[in-house]
């Protein structure tokens, strides 16, 4: 029998026992035992009621009377676990403050950790002095306790912790490894919003010696961040701090070597020359006796293989031996890496190895393998037969929804992209829905069959599979099958009579939706079951795309009031909603396969182009040159939120005002922006497109277009007034009052600046580009920029003024430098390439002087760039 000292332990009894805390003569050993029991209960997931917790807490505070160190340690731990409320905290504050100033290091360190954990901030100013002292305490445990507490407190009380910078900076120099680590972490968090300070911190520490491996790992992370934020161009290999990362590959601690190797592989646009030393150390890890090292290395190489497959091929032999690794995670990663780097001749051998091992790995690994096989098949379409067979085999085996979906998605993509794989792929899918437990997958496959099946050489062979669904499945799948049948009937005239027979049988289905669909199709397909062509208009009506975003349609339908007037699909706004930032970030998880729109999703520029070209008045403006990022014209959290995108054409500009209405009780109609261009003399308003309706929480756009002299970078200031008719809405019923009131809402001014006419376009090798551009239209001049905060600030200001792309990381100014050269490239309106070389120098203590050299394909453009700087 399992013996346990806690056998039969019971909360009530332990709470009773806790009364010993109140004894006048404390027995430290017994008290410790009771605390251990309480902690055991909490650890097992037992909860104390508020009353119980308070009672225990008050009893525990009595234990500060004991001078027993062991007991005191347990008291610290249980106070943290009980997480007392604010009024309870007051009871222990003075005891803890006393411990904080004790001569015993252990008391000081722990009291700091406890107090900082439970305090709500009001106490903090009282103890701040002690914490600052503790940070530079000669005992490393005390210093670390204060620093780590600082890291936690920074979240809640940043303004206080930021005052400790000097002490923290001193602690970074500590000889104790972990103090250095904790100090560095805190210092960076204090400064993280100050790019310049972080730059400075990184460049001074990368030169010095950091003792602790953990601190060194931190430094590598900070360095990568600095590199990430500073460079966009990497072709020349002059990446700042690369040497530091490479040097870390020779560090004696494995965690540092690995951190550096991983950082190098994750550099933006990493070159194969930069990758080589990192791959070499990772390759060594692959044959380590430690599973953790093998895993870390193979996981990193797996990621590298996605973007730089050839860089990883050197490791293929080591990878192959990992297929039989005891650790299945390592084996899976090795296999998928090989699938990414392998060549056509190795496919069959790999597939054999994989088949053996699929059965003993978990679904999530199988999904990874399936994804890898899909990409392999797209890479080597000639191998589609064996790869498609593999997919259909695993589709028949046991597996959860996500796994099955991954397989189905892969087959769908292969059918789309490899014409030879279509027929066999469709049949595999048909067989799958014969025995598919997932409604979602069945309906998606039926929909897909309806699109692809009729286009095959023998569409009739799919009908049986589809009609079987009508017998055997739930209503959702049956309805899907009815629609798919109708599609075959509409597209393949010869099948129409048979389809009509089948659809008629569906009229007796016990589900409304299934019957309705069948009725609709029987009445619209036409010909009454004869072999006749289906009318194009009918096809378009039944199966054509709606040409409006579904979200908008949904909104309009919700707002539609059933009445005499039929719902008009033309009233649905076609404008694409502006995605909030958070959604954009999540684009890494793009839908693929069934859920995805056929071609890749359009980029922002494409989306804007599409949107603008849908407005006939803008058609004559020619090609869109540039669209700016949205500029907010309202404060956050106002009634109406408006931002504007500036679209630049050769002879026109269009302002796209994205408006949203945040008041549920209002409907805005006929929304326009009245633009006063009196401070933009070269612009003449030519068109204004109002927004018909702006309901609550459903953003829309209004446009104003201006004519401007062609090819000229005219600048100016525009003041904006939102004008609209406001109607009251009853938010509970959605009922809108008939009468509206005209109203106006002042927006912020908008400026069109020179940078709006410049596209950020990098060059891969600036020197080559500069030489080949030649001196024909070079224009060089010198400027005084007056006193500036720093050289870096001046460099930034000029870059922003010109709106050009910094090259080769030259926008980063090393700290304490007296001069700096910055290289920029871009394309100016009229599609003129422009290269700029800026040389900055400090003239006296603060005064910055600049030499500006511009080369371009057009003399007037070179002059225009100088004009921008001269007037900026």
């Amino acid at each position, binding site marked *: 029998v399992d013996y346990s000292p806690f056998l039969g332990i019971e909360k009530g009894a332990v709470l009773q026992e806790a009364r010993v805390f109140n004894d006048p003569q404390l027995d430290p050993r017994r008290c410790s035992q009771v605390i251990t029991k309480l902690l055991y209960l909490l650890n097992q997931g037992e*909860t104390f009621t508020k009353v119980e917790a308070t009672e225990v807490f008050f009893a525990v505070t009595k234990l500060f009377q004991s001078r027993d160190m062991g007991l005191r340690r347990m008291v610290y731990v249980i106070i943290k676990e009980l997480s007392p409320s604010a009024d309870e905290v007051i009871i222990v504050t003075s005891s803890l403050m006393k411990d904080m100033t004790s001569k015993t290091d252990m008391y000081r360190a722990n009291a700091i950790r406890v107090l900082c954990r439970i305090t709500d901030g009001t106490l903090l100013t009282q103890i701040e002095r002690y914490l600052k002292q503790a940070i530079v305490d000669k005992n490393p445990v005390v210093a670390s306790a204060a620093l780590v507490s600082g890291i936690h407190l920074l979240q809640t009380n940043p303004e206080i912790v930021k005052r400790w910078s000097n002490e923290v900076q001193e602690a970074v120099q500590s000889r104790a490894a972990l103090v250095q680590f904790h100090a560095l972490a805190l210092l960076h968090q204090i400064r993280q919003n100050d790019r310049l300070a972080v730059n400075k911190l990184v460049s001074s520490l990368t030169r010095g010696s950091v003792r602790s491996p953990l601190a060194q790992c931190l430094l590598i992370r900070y360095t990568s961040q600095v590199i990430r934020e500073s460079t966009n161009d990497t072709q020349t290999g002059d990446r700042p701090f690369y040497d530091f990362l490479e040097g870390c590959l020779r560090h004696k601690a494995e965690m540092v070597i690995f951190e550096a190797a991983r950082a190098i592989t994750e550099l933006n646009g990493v070159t194969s020359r930069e990758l080589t030393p990192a791959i070499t150390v990772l390759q060594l890890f692959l044959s380590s006796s430690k599973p953790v090292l093998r895993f870390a290395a193979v996981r990193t190489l797996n990621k590298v293989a996605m973007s730089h497959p050839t860089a990883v091929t050197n490791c293929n032999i080591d990878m192959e031996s990992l297929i039989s690794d005891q650790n299945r995670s390592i084996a899976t990663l090795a296999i998928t890496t090989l699938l990414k780097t392998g060549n056509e001749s190795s496919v069959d051998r790999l597939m054999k190895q994989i088949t053996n091992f699929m059965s003993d790995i978990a679904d999530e690994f199988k999904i990874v393998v399936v994804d890898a096989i899909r990409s392999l098949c797209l890479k080597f379409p000639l191998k589609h037969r064996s790869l498609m067979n593999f997919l259909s085999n695993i589709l028949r085996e046991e597996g959860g929804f996500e796994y099955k979906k991954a397989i189905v998605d892969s087959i769908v993509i292969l059918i789309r992209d490899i014409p030879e794989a279509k027929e066999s792929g469709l049949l595999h899918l048909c067989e799958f829905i014969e025995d598919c437990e997932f409604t979602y997958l069945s309906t998606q496959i039926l929909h897909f069959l309806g699109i692809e099946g009729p286009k095959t050489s023998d569409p009739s062979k799919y009908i049986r599979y589809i009609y079987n669904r009508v017998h055997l499945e739930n209503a959702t799948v049956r309805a899907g099958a009815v629609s798919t049948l109708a599609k075959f009937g509409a597209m393949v005239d010869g099948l129409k009579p048979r389809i009509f027979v089948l659809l008629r049988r569906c009229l007796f289905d016990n589900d409304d939706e299934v019957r309705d669909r069948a009725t609709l199709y029987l009445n619209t397909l036409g010909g009454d079951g004869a072999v006749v062509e289906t009318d194009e208009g009918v096809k378009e009506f039944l199966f054509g795309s709606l040409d409006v975003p579904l979200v908008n349609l949904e909104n309009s339908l919700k707002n539609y009031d059933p009445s005499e007037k039929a719902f008009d699909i033309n009233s649905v706004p076609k404008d694409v909603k502006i995605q909030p930032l958070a959604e954009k970030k999540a684009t890494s998880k793009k839908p693929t396969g069934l859920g995805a729109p056929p071609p890749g999703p359009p980029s922002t520029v494409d989306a804007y182009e599409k949107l603008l070209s849908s407005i006939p008045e803008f058609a004559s403006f020619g090609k869109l040159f540039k669209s700016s990022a949205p500029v907010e014209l309202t404060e956050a959290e106002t009634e109406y939120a408006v931002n504007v995108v500036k679209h630049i054409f050769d002879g026109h500009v269009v302002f796209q005002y994205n408006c949203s209405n945040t008041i549920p009780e209002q409907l805005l109609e006929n929304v326009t922006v009245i633009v006063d261009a009196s401070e933009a003399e070269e612009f003449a308003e030519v068109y204004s497109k109002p927004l018909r309706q702006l309901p609550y929480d459903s953003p829309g756009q209004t446009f104003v277009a201006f004519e401007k002299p062609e090819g000229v970078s005219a600048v100016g200031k525009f003041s904006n007034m939102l004008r609209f008719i406001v109607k009251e809405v009853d938010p509970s019923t959605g009922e809108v009052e008939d009468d509206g009131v005209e109203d106006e809402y002042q927006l912020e001014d908008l400026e069109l600046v020179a940078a709006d006419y410049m596209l950020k376009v990098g060059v891969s090798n600036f020197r080559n580009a500069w030489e080949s551009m030649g001196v024909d239209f070079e224009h060089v001049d010198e400027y005084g920029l007056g006193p500036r905060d720093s050289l870096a600030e001046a460099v930034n200001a000029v870059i922003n003024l010109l709106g050009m792309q910094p090259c080769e990381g030259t926008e980063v100014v090393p700290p304490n430098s007296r001069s700096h050269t910055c290289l920029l490239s871009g394309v100016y309106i009229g599609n003129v390439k422009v290269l700029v070389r800026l040389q900055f120098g400090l003239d006296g203590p603060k005064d910055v002087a600049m030499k500006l050299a511009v080369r371009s394909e057009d003399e007037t453009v070179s002059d225009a760039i100088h004009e921008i700087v001269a007037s900026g």
Partner: protein
Amino acid sequence: ELCPTIKNILLLDSEGKRIAVKYYSDDWPTNAAKEAFEKAVFTKTQKTNARTEAEITMFDNYIVVYKFVQDLHFFVTGGENENEIILATVLQGFFDAVGLLLRGTEDKKEALENLDLILLCLDEIVDGGIILETDANVIAGKVDSHSMDAGAPLSEQTITQALATAREHLTRSLLK
């Protein structure tokens, strides 16, 4: 967040039951969520041989490193982007410190009898997700540095003796 972060440290028995666990992340807000995680981790790893070298697995976007001795299963969890070797270093520190504190008798019975030491050990390794210390000798030394009250019974005195070497290491490493 760039600082290495520990999501949880678990010490389970050979049936996956809790001996001592500590969560530093809100990813598992309820006890049920915690138990579900522990069950998943345990089932996933129980058949592996993690007795000579620490093993590693990845699931639900977490990296879990683990090592077993007798009927004790040690786990350390980090986020999917965490440096695996840092997690393994924390695991090794915990594993070896418990070994020192249990004087080589590393099994569930001994662990439960010295649960106070194990809880203190967890308290010394990580604070709110941030790594405090990874050197087993230092960790064990800090845990034990207090149990020297005069009235300590025999069993605790033997711990003290067993840790004499550990403390020597501690002072030496602090004087370095």
